[in-house]
């Protein structure tokens, strides 16, 4: 079984889906230019020579049109995968996503479907305020959109393939520090999890989270980069050298819409403690929603208050020392966990 980075796994998913289904095509800025980058983070590199420029469509710098054209093509029977260079640019597309793509099915009383995928890189990576935000929470608040966050190479392929086959608009948030992009597009401070990715046709279903580290003392729910920081914090807290070793269970929700609430509740019933970790801003984040759901559904199982670890309510800063303060660190995750004991 080959090892792949997340960027390679995403590319493989696109390749397989385009081979399988004539209706699938990619559209976005700089995705298929010869001598170009293959999108901002190399995911579509080489695909235009495999599939041609009719199916790997380079666009003008026109984000609203990219989203709207993808929605219109989806409405007329195609299955577009639209590339967003940085998730922050989703704000340029907001009317087409929130008012058109998300609402057309409802407004048509179910007679139209919009099977489109938006791929959007998130995460603060030394680029300042406008190429850095994590926007998952915004989109979980829009009925009609699904929100997906692959954190491993295996999931990247399986979730993207599920997204392409889903009959609804799906936003796939990918983390810049997890891609494993190489060469000139490599990222400083990247983790780049390489994983075994089967070449056969498998799907990772939506609404099924997974336990990345089993434990009994506290439940940590974290996505994307925060998953890896939480796993690292869990190892430190569990080490025999620790003052009071804590055995944390770390859950990767994989998809935020739909959310695998049962998996989280089951874990909290076991551990009695919950910490939610997100790179998004704190207020009204998806972590707040999970905290509310757990307190509504499982309040009497809790032995301590629910804690959120998130970016403060400020735009992402530039200076490395400020950015390190902004993005939740292993230490902040450990502090939050330890405060519950």
């Amino acid at each position, binding site marked *: 079984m080959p090892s792949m980075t997340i960027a390679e796994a995403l590319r493989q998913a696109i390749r397989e889906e385009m081979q399988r289904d004539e209706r699938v*095509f990619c559209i976005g800025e700089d995705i298929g230019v010869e001598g170009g980058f293959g999108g901002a983070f190399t995911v579509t590199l080489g695909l235009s020579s495999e599939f041609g420029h*009719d*199916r790997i*469509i380079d*666009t*003008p710098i*026109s984000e*609203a*049109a990219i*989203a*709207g*054209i*993808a*929605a*219109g*093509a*989806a*409405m*007329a*029977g*195609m299955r577009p995968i639209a590339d967003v260079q940085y998730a922050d640019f989703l704000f340029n597309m907001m*009317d*087409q996503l929130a*008012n*058109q793509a998300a609402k*057309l*099915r*409802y*407004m*048509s*009383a*179910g*007679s*139209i*479907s919009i099977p489109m995928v938006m791929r959007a890189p998130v995460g603060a990576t030394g680029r300042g305020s406008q190429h850095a935000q994590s926007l998952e929470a915004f989109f979980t608040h829009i*009925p*009609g959109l*699904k929100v997906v966050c692959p954190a491993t190479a295996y999931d990247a392929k399986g979730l993207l393939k599920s997204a392409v086959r889903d*009959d*609804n608009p799906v936003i796939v948030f990918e983390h810049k520090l997890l891609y494993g992009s190489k060469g000139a597009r490599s990222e400083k401070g990247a983790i780049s999890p390489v994983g075994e990715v089967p070449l056969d046709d498998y799907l990772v279903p939506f609404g099924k989270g997974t336990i990345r580290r089993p434990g009994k003392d506290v439940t940590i729910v974290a996505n994307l980069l925060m998953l890896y920081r939480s796993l690292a914090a869990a190892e430190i807290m569990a080490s025999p050298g620790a003052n009071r070793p804590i055995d944390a269970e770390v859950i990767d929700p994989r998809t935020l819409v739909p959310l695998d609430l049962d998996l989280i509740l089951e874990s909290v019933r076991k551990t009695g403690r919950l910490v939610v970790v997100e790179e998004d801003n704190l207020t009204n984040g998806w972590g707040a929603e999970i905290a509310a759901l757990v307190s509504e559904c499982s309040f009497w199982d809790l032995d301590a208050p629910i804690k959120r670890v998130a970016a403060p309510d400020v735009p992402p800063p530039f200076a490395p020392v400020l950015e390190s303060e902004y993005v939740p660190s292993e230490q902040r995750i450990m502090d939050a966990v330890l405060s519950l004991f």
Partner: protein
Amino acid sequence: MAAVIFQPDPLVSAHIPVEKYLAMYQTMVLIRRFEETANELYMQGKIPSTLHLYIGQEAVAAGVIAQLRQEDYILSTHRPHGHALAKGVHPRAIMAELFGKGTGACKGKGGSMHVGDIRVGMPPAIAIVGGNTPLAAGAALAFKLQKTDLVSVSFFGDGAANEGVWHESLNAAAIWNLPVIFVCENNLYGASTSFKSVFHVDQVAERASAYGMPGIIADGNDVLAVYQAAGEAVQRARKGDGPTLLECMTYRQCGHSRSDPRTYRTREEEDTWKLKDPIAGFRSYLLAQQLAAENQLQAVESKVEAQIQDAIEYAESSPLPEPAEVTTDVFKE
């Protein structure tokens, strides 16, 4: 590449079959009577919310859509009843939707501003100004990738041409040679704001040159001019020669919505445009050219009255949506 003022060719008009003339006349009368009736029902309190009436602009919907097939797409606006009727959405379904009934075109989930029926090539109307332009371009991209000769039409008012996404969409349609027709219904006002106060060009169609596509100006109150101009644009699109910006000069005889007192324009201006009423003008033309006899036109008008009465009865007697339906149709399972 300056915008071109379209001159209908009498020789072309002479080759239009009589049935086509009568069909366009029927469409225009149907729209007019539907809108007048909807307004009465609104005043009686039977239709909730508000209405954006299409009265005065009927020649645009009738003339453009007469060039389309059922499989072609149209994308409409917050003022969509005329487009919907012309494309073949059933008057019953539209009227029931205005009433908020469960039998409406959108089962009560859309309302006046979102009527449509995908089975006749009309997705729900898009009530965000300019919002439908990339959707129309996207549908056209799909038709091109699917190697069909179908086309899509984006209808919009003059106001939409000042939205950013409109620029993005026309540019993309032009560079990719998409089979889409951008039909601007320039009715001289965006809500209360006059065209002249927000454009520093004389015509929207002049902007076509910025995208390298033909810009055509047609008399939007002359259904034959619209029909012929749209015919050329649709043929270009079907042949793979790309998009056209077709600007139809017309006038919204009623206010923007039902709460509009129209104090931003003069009664004299309104009277001038009423003299150019598209239906009265076409009726006179048909009689003068002996394309139809008075009794034929009356028969069309009677048929429309029956359709309107049928739509009202259907809407009034239809059930309300089940309240539990509020949570359905968000996602496709």
